[in-house]
């Protein structure tokens, strides 16, 4: 057990030559009077001397090596490496291009496959983007027109039937509310007729147009019923309806339009 206060660290550093000059001189003064530290210092010096001698031996071992041959072997290895790199460089350039070329080739193959196997685009007609068989548009338009006209005829039939049952001989004069109802229905029919006019102007429906015009005339009269003597006017219209067989003509026309969709309406 050490009793001296001088630390081991200072002795070790002194032995290693790492103390400053004043510190070293102070330690030497102390060592002269302290056998314990002298012994410790001697141990450190012995240990580090042994380490230094080992270093000397290592250097001596270095002297026994053929360094000329060593250098030649190193230079030779360097030359071989450089030569190999020079040989490899063009190959490396090829290697660098290989993935690029492979990618381009794959892209080209993909494009070819895509355009070859993709679904054939629909041929365009008239710039609309779709090409229908010839006459399809006309057929569809005819069908739509027929449906509209049938609807107009069906409603006209019901309104006319109601109108025929108004102001019977035994019945009192129609009430104001009833005439207003007829007038409103007639106005609706007038509007519907305007909507159908575009279809009726088409050549296949020219003959249906004459019947619809007659019905339209009746409805225009109903829509303008005078406040007084309404039944007189209505009776006059009833007379005209019966005389012209309008309800029969309507049914015949409906039948014609319903059962001959592909053919134009026949003359009624």
């Amino acid at each position, binding site marked *: 057990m050490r009793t001296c206060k001088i630390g081991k660290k200072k002795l070790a550093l002194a032995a290693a030559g790492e103390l400053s000059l004043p510190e070293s001189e102070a330690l030497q003064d102390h060592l002269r009077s302290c056998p314990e530290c002298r012994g410790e210092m001697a141990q450190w010096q012995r240990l580090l001397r042994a*380490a230094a001698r080992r270093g000397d031996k290592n250097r001596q*071992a270095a002297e026994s090596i053929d360094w000329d041959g060593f250098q030649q072997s190193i230079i030779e290895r360097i030359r071989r490496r450089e030569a190999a790199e020079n040989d490899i460089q063009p190959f490396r350039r090829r290697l660098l291009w290989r993935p690029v070329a492979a990618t381009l080739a794959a892209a080209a193959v993909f494009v070819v496959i895509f355009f070859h196997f993709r679904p054939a685009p629909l041929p365009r007609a008239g710039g609309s983007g779709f090409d229908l068989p010839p006459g399809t548009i006309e057929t569809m338009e005819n069908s739509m027109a027929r449906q509209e006209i049938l609807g107009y005829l069906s409603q006209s039939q019901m309104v006319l039937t109601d109108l025929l049952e108004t102001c019977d001989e035994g019945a009192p004069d129609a009430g104001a509310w009833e005439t207003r109802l007829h007038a409103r229905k007639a106005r609706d029919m007038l509007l519907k007729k305007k909507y159908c006019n575009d279809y009726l102007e088409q050549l296949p429906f020219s003959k249906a147009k004459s019947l619809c015009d007659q019905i339209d005339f009746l409805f225009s009269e109903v829509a303008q019923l005078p406040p007084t003597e309404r039944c007189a006017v209505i009776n006059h219209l009833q007379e005209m309806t019966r005389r012209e067989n309008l309800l029969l003509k309507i049914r015949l026309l409906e039948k014609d339009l319903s059962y001959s969709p592909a053919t134009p309406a026949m003359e009624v």
Partner: protein
Amino acid sequence: MRRSGREAEGATTGEAVIVAATPESELELLERAKRRDHFAFGVLMGRYQKKVFAFAYGFCQNREDAMEIVQETFLRMYEKLDLYRREYSLQSWIYRLAHNLCIDHYRRHKRRLRMVSNVDCWDGIDASLPESAEAEEDQSQMQALVQLQLGRLSDKQKTVFVLKHQQGMKLEEIAGVLGVSLGTVKTLHHRALQNIKKGVRRDIDRGG
């Protein structure tokens, strides 16, 4: 400019000695070596090869391993010449390359090195070591004990100890080699000393 193969071979002969004797030409040699001048590189090798060997030998305690490390150090140095920066000492840079290779080598062959180290160091140490060591100061036995403890130090402590006490480098230079501060090197040095001393004392006591 690239020299001819004959000139490069001259690096291993007297021509290299003449060039190596001119200390101020080191940077010039370095620049030429960077331009793949084998002759200049051979001259640089001649300046540092023995030091690197002594360091590697002190580190791994095996002549063949040390030679392998020296070879790899200079091959790596040649490959990385472009990375060398002038603000650092060339010697420190070379030692750093060698230090890294020593550590790699030591880690690869850890078990074998430890066994070799133990066998080599205990050769010639008899059972009466304490009396013999203290009485006769048998330096060869002490050297073996120090080497044994050196092999037990950490990589950095070992490097500091070898560079300081076997290569004679200053602690500031060692800091440059390891790329650490001077304070760190002082700490490593102190711990290395204490560990070796403690280990040697323990071995001596165990032998007694």
